[in-house]
């Protein structure tokens, strides 16, 4: 299991399109992936849960990845957050 803390840098946070891109990206991996804010932990592959977490810009979140492809998954997540949720071309 890998766990990492991130600060969502973009102004608007995990809203709308960034949330969709995030869910689409993590859903490509087999590992169990969760995202938590203020100790509330939800399934990162569920768009409704990610949206209802209400992650604003500048918030701290913890992402946990557990499974056979956890390394690759975490790398992809880091890259996505680094690039402010720009879709990969």
């Amino acid at each position, binding site marked *: 299991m890998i766990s990492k803390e991130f600060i969502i840098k*973009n*102004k608007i946070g995990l809203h*709308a399109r960034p949330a*969709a891109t995030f869910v689409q990206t993590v859903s490509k991996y087999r590992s169990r992936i969760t995202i938590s804010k203020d100790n509330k932990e939800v399934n990162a592959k*569920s*768009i409704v*849960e990610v949206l209802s977490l209400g992650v604003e810009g500048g918030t701290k979140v913890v992402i946990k990845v557990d499974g056979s492809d956890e390394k690759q998954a975490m790398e992809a997540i880091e890259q996505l957050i680094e690039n402010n949720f720009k879709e990969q071309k």
Partner: protein
Amino acid sequence: MKKFKGMGVSNGIAIGKVFLYLPLKHLNIENKKDNLTIKTKKEAVERALNSVKNDILLTLEHLNSKDAKKEAEIFNAHLLFIEDPTIKEKIDMLLNQGFSAAYAVECAFEESAKKIALLKNNYLKERASDLRDVKNQVLRKLLNLSTPSLSNLPNKCIVIAEDLMPSDTARINKKNVLGFVTEKGSTTSHTAILAEALGIPAIVGVSGITKEVSAGKTVIIDGEEGVVIYEPTRKQLEYYTNKKQKQIKEQESLNQIKFTKIYTKSGKEIEVFANIGNPEEADIALKNGADGIGLYRTEFLFIGRESPPTEEEQFNAYKSVLIKFKKKPVIIRTLDIGGDKSIPYLNINNELNPFLGVRAIRLCLNNVELFKTQLRAILRASIFGNARIMYPMIAVEEEIERANVILNEVKLELKNKGVPFKKSIQIGIMVEIPSAALNAERLIQHVDFFSIGTNDLIQYTFAADRTNENVSYLYNPLHPAVLKLIKLAAEASHKYGKRIGMCGEMAGDLKSIPELIRLGLDELSMTPSKIPYVKKFIKDNF
């Protein structure tokens, strides 16, 4: 016979049969529990989910082929909702407890929708209605209710609905629809835009009509008067059939003129251009015979969203219009926005007087990255047609110089990267602040053309808010003070051999056009639907 009054948002007369479009908004789930096996119910839910998913994929395919990005975004979200693991788990849990399939679907979706509806952010809140839209689609499949659809319309019908959403009309059968009537809506609603694009009449704001009419009955709608006549008398049928014939005849004479170039008797060409606010309107402009685009407002790309549009998004929006207009000029105005609009990602301070504050070019010069992204997108798109760039709200020379420095930086960056763009792209400014008109001779030396924005010019000249009814007596386009400013700008540009246009409401106003021609304007730009009338007017009178 029943007569209804509404607001006409697209002109024309249509006589046809009522098609009532009532997608069930609230479905009643009768059985909470039933005796079917869990396995049977799970399979039924799975089939329903898959079937809706296929529908969404088909719609997406259809939209992608039309290059309708904004609409496609909505359906991409629908796709994520239908595949959501949390909702699926919740459904399974309820099924295992013996609840009926429909009840399980209803509860699982509704629980998430309620959570989302509670969020503070308005944009996110709206996603709850998307989620419910998906839920209803699944329920209809489960309950074997036919999905109301506009893709299979009977011949020559008038669609009457509570409201029409992009998801309703994405796959509408355009050939068979003669007009729209909705209970909700405004001039800017989806119905209005679609009707205008299709060139068919539409009446919105006709409250209660869906409950008072039946499918298949005859109905007349007149977009000009904003009336709907249900089961008309013979006399009314005759009257509107005649009126329609007359309109068609007038239209034909306009049609003959609208695609021609317009010259005055002295042989000077007056270019008649269109103002547009998004790429879809480019088609309407072409249909009305626009000689070019005199004002391509780019605000639509920036408003009503949580993050600025990407360079790619902008590039595509500019490119699509340029391709459609081929060699005809397309004047793209850089972002004209300020404190009167709330744009969450722009961090605009609250200002006491937003119309006298940091807006338009002032805002762009303070947000260089935002400005550069837009200029880069326009330059990259410039190779696809005849693009021109126009800076709004220029008050003094220094602003043009600063904007041009940034433009040249962007050009250099593109050149170094080997990205093609049109090096000779023309640059112009809006003359909409009295100081710009008074100082026109100095300003014109920095640019290739002027375009007068009368709405702001008048408001700033008389210090009168154009939306304030109590000072509307001051809002007079033909006042000598305004005409003097226009004259100064026109004389300055012609002295330096440059062209001057106008893109405010005054340019499409038949009462003002004689003055504008006398003052020597070379180009008039207006709402697309006015172009044929203005062309005919100039041809007949000058």
